[in-house]
């Protein structure tokens, strides 16, 4: 009983530590130029370049727009935090505090999650107000956005692990991962209508499953079933987060 109580206290302390990290990240990084450029402006211009002058139905464009905004915003914070802290020489004090590396990284994931969820509200509202699109299932939409943001934020934190002398190197790496996956995940063209080779690649992208869920929430047929999408998003989150913990631990001291 005592050991269970101690364990519960440790979990509570670490959760508190993660929330403190979330607060710090929100203060420090949400308004940093790389986050705003790669997290907010990028998807906006992508959307405009895709939409302008093309007869794409609102039913298709709104779920894609929401998924794309979520993809860019939720993955924008994670890659910035650790490299920035290393360069600013604040990282060593952080990792010598009584908050575990897992809890610190969980705080970073939460930062991406909150940022992604908040910003995804904008395309949802714009889609509902300016087009004929309507939400067929609110629980599915919420699940798609929250689980998607969680998975993407975990990917962002994993991408921040390599020791880099400058945050811009990590942002470059993150774009090398984010941009190709964007084109094979059924954002601009439904996966079923993509070439065969792209359909083979689509299942390795977590964005495909979030996109399927969000399409289903807007009453459009998703390429993957709802059940499969939910399971795989959870699985991707676990694998990406554990990978992030492993690589951050391995490269913890580099660049201090």
């Amino acid at each position, binding site marked *: 009983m005592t050991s269970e109580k101690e364990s519960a206290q*440790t979990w509570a*302390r*670490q959760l*508190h*530590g993660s929330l*403190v990290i979330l*607060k*710090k990240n929100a*203060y*420090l990084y949400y308004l940093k130029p790389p986050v705003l450029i790669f997290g907010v402006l990028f998807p906006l211009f992508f959307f405009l370049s895709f939409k302008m002058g093309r007869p794409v139905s609102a039913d298709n464009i709104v779920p894609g727009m929401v998924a794309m905004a979520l993809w860019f915003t939720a993955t924008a914070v994670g890659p910035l935090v650790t490299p920035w802290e290393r360069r*600013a*020489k*604040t990282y*060593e*004090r*952080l*990792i*010598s*505090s*009584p*908050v*575990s590396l897992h809890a610190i990284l969980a705080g970073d994931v939460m930062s991406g999650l909150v940022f992604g969820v908040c910003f995804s509200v904008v395309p949802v509202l714009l889609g509902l107000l300016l087009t004929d699109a309507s939400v067929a299932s609110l629980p599915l939409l919420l699940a798609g956005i929250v689980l998607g943001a969680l998975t993407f934020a975990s990917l962002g934190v994993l991408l921040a692990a390599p020791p880099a002398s400058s945050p811009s190197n990590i942002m470059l790496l993150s774009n090398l991962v984010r941009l190709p996956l964007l084109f094979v995940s059924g954002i601009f063209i439904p996966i079923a209508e993509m070439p065969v080779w792209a359909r083979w690649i689509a299942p390795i992208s977590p964005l495909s499953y979030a996109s399927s869920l969000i399409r289903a929430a807007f009453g459009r047929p998703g390429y993957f079933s709802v059940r499969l999408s939910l399971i795989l998003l959870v699985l991707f989150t676990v694998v990406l987060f554990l990978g992030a913990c492993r690589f951050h631990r391995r490269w*913890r*001291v580099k660049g*201090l």
Partner: protein
Amino acid sequence: MQTIIEASGLTKRFGDLVAVDHVSFSVRKGEIFGFLGPNGAGKTTTVRMLTGVLDSTEGSATVEEHDVRREALLARAHMAVVPEEANVYLDLSVWQNIMLMAELHGVRREKRLRRGKELLQRLGLADRTRQKARALSKGLRQRLMLCAALVTNPEALFLDEPTSGLDVQSAKLIRSIVADLNENGLTVFLTTHNMAEASEMCSRVAIIDHGRIVAIDTPEKLRSTMISRQYVEVEFAQGSPEMEELECLPGVSQAEMRGRAFRLYTKEPGGVLAEVVRLTDRKDGLKISDLGSRKPSLEDVFLHITGGRKEGGQ
């Protein structure tokens, strides 16, 4: 006296390089323990292993009887760290920086608010509470870092070169606050290259060289182990004897010129003092302006033990 920090056979290898080689020592509760060594000797690596930032390859370390690897969080809950090249969060205010560290250490709200205000007052930052850390000078940032470390009310404080590159006022204030806190029971693990600071502040010092502890004792005892490095220093106001004359004085093992003064190394400074006075009486035109016996400084001990390699590559 009770031990608070204990290192036992602590070793760190980076590939073929042995950065820290079976280092063992213990720090007693309530002492200021100095950790000295030339650049690249293994000081920062040792501190990083003790604070749980770096895993040791071999050996173990405990803080308040908690193993820094197996019970890292418990060990870290008892300590606060001010790393050498660390910085504060420049885009947070002075107050936010302090509260962030307190919150990470789980200090309760009313306690952190009270302690934060007290420390700001004590470290001369009270009128800068709302100012962004970016606007502070290096000395003030270092004070803020100390503030953020102390708000957690640690039992052991790790300070890595806390006064390096600071203005005289900030350095003096930091030394005085650390000494005050130590009087109230705080244990301090101080890494410094400032020998005068180590000599003045530390109850004991360890000297590390090439990853190994080469000496560990009180500054006074370390100085007294170098009896052959005691010397008589003499400066003449008028005239000057030949170096050979001084070297030939009974009891002098070595003589050298330091600026305008002659330094005569000896195991019997009393006898050599008398010999110098006799020599002055014997020779016409010689007049002493300053004469005295000196014990070797901690810096002399350090240079002797590390083969003359001083911090900063000098």
